[in-house]
């Protein structure tokens, strides 16, 4: 019996690894196909699709990004101020909040929100289309699912990622400045000067690069999971969950390597 159990466990692990490898390969292939299809994004029909998606996605995530970014800025500032209060170094709060929000927390928190609100909806939408044979119908009509479904979503998220990250950074910094002023009497001038003094162009560029990479990740992972959906409603649920989990893992791994590449 224990041998049979061990065999089943090894089989399950093997199946998981094979599926992960297949899914990764499919995702990379999808990214390459979408890249090759980029010239088709200039058609009026695709531009209209992209603008519609941008509008929908922006409204779906704006309020959550605002609230989460505000509290991220508040928490960052508060933690720093509590720690350095006894040392009299409160005037350094600007640099901590600004650099953290622009370089790390802004892109990451925005990506997490976009993945949870938009990435999973992409996986669910395309997954439902897969199980109801709508994707097959597109293929039979000689309509490429990559051009018709993946490309508009990829471009919408490539635009939305940096937009929301900038918004998130601004809101987070304002939140940090507000709590510094109201609870620790750090003036806005002092906060701003300290932030500007330490914040480099490289930090802004790194943050924006991460937001672009994370945006592409959300779109490709959502589309990959959606297109690979099997097994009706249960399969759609599974794809949706996987899209969020895989995206989160990739944010951390890719985020680490981008920071490493620029600062190490």
């Amino acid at each position, binding site marked *: 019996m224990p041998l049979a159990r061990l065999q089943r466990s090894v089989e399950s692990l093997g199946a998981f690894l094979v599926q992960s490898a297949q899914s990764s390969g499919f995702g990379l292939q999808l990214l390459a196909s979408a890249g090759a299809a980029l010239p088709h994004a200039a058609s009026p029909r695709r531009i209209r699709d992209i603008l519609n998606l941008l509008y929908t996605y922006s409204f779906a995530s704006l309020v959550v990004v605002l609230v989460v970014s505000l509290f991220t800025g508040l928490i960052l500032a508060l933690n720093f101020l509590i720690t350095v209060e006894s040392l009299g170094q409160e005037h350094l709060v600007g640099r901590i909040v600004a650099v953290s929000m622009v370089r790390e927390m802004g892109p990451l928190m925005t990506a997490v929100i976009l993945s949870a609100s938009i990435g999973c909806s992409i996986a669910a939408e395309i997954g439902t289309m897969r199980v109801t044979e*709508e994707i097959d119908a597109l293929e039979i009509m000689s309509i490429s699912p990559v051009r*018709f479904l993946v490309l508009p979503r990829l471009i919408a998220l490539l635009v939305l990622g940096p937009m929301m990250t900038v918004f998130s950074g601004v809101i987070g910094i304002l939140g940090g400045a507000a709590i510094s002023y109201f609870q620790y009497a750090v003036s806005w001038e002092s906060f701003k000067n300290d932030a500007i003094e330490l914040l480099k162009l490289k930090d802004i560029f790194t943050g924006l690069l991460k937001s672009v990479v994370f945006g592409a990740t959300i779109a490709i992972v959502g589309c990959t999971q959606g297109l690979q959906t099997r097994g009706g409603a249960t399969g759609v649920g599974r794809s949706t969950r996987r899209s969020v989990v895989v995206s989160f893992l990739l944010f951390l791994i890719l985020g680490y390597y981008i920071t490493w590449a620029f600062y190490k």
Partner: protein
Amino acid sequence: MIEMQGVYKRLDRKDVLAGLDLEVLPRETLVILGRSGTGKSVTLRHIVGLMTADRGTVRVFGVDLGKASPAELRECRRRIGYLFQDGALLNWITVGQNVALPLQETRLLPKREIQERVAECLGEVELLDAIDKYPSEISGGMRKRAGLARALATRPEVVLYDEPTSGLDPISSNIINRLINTLKSKLHVTQVVVTHDMNAAYVIGDRLALLHEGRIHAIGTAREFQESDDPAVVQFTRGEIDGPLSRTAAGAPALLAPHKGGQTTTVISHGKESR
């Protein structure tokens, strides 16, 4: 026009198609019959290149789909219309936009002609009133008819139907059956219909084929099917519970009785053809 030779397909550890041989002649309507799970829809999916055979060849318009380039496959598909079981309409655009979709995306027609074609196709399935409705706002039967209008929009040479009348009221079924006959008589479209509906099969089919255990068990005209004394054909056409199409207690197919049918009904048993 469509030729399948020795096609094998294994799905979920089961041989769904096991050496299927099938030829669809130009301008004919071939009805594929068979119990659920015998590979009827899988056969259609092979014809349109949505599935590739594990073994054997599928030729459509002379093109071997197993070896076709993406461009050749696209070209083949442009000449084929496909009606899915539930219509497979995109739910975020209207019925009219769904019908226009293949024309717009593949630029088959100039813009001004697309609306005319959409109205024409929706008129053919008696669904012109629903042109501005979304798929979620219409019934299942209407969705299926809209799916058929979309399949016909490109004026295909071959139309494949996956259960075109299942779940439909008798009037909607008759509208679709009449349309299938009209396409055959007026536009000379080659059609392959997968169905369980024997009444529809008799009305629309030039030839009927009974699929069993991944192969064509019997093929012939409606009259030949009605007059056949082949036990499997008799069981299926009469819907009898016991018979060779039912599995035995051991799970193996029951033995087929020797064929004693008419002159032209071909019965294929275990891959050997007899007349």
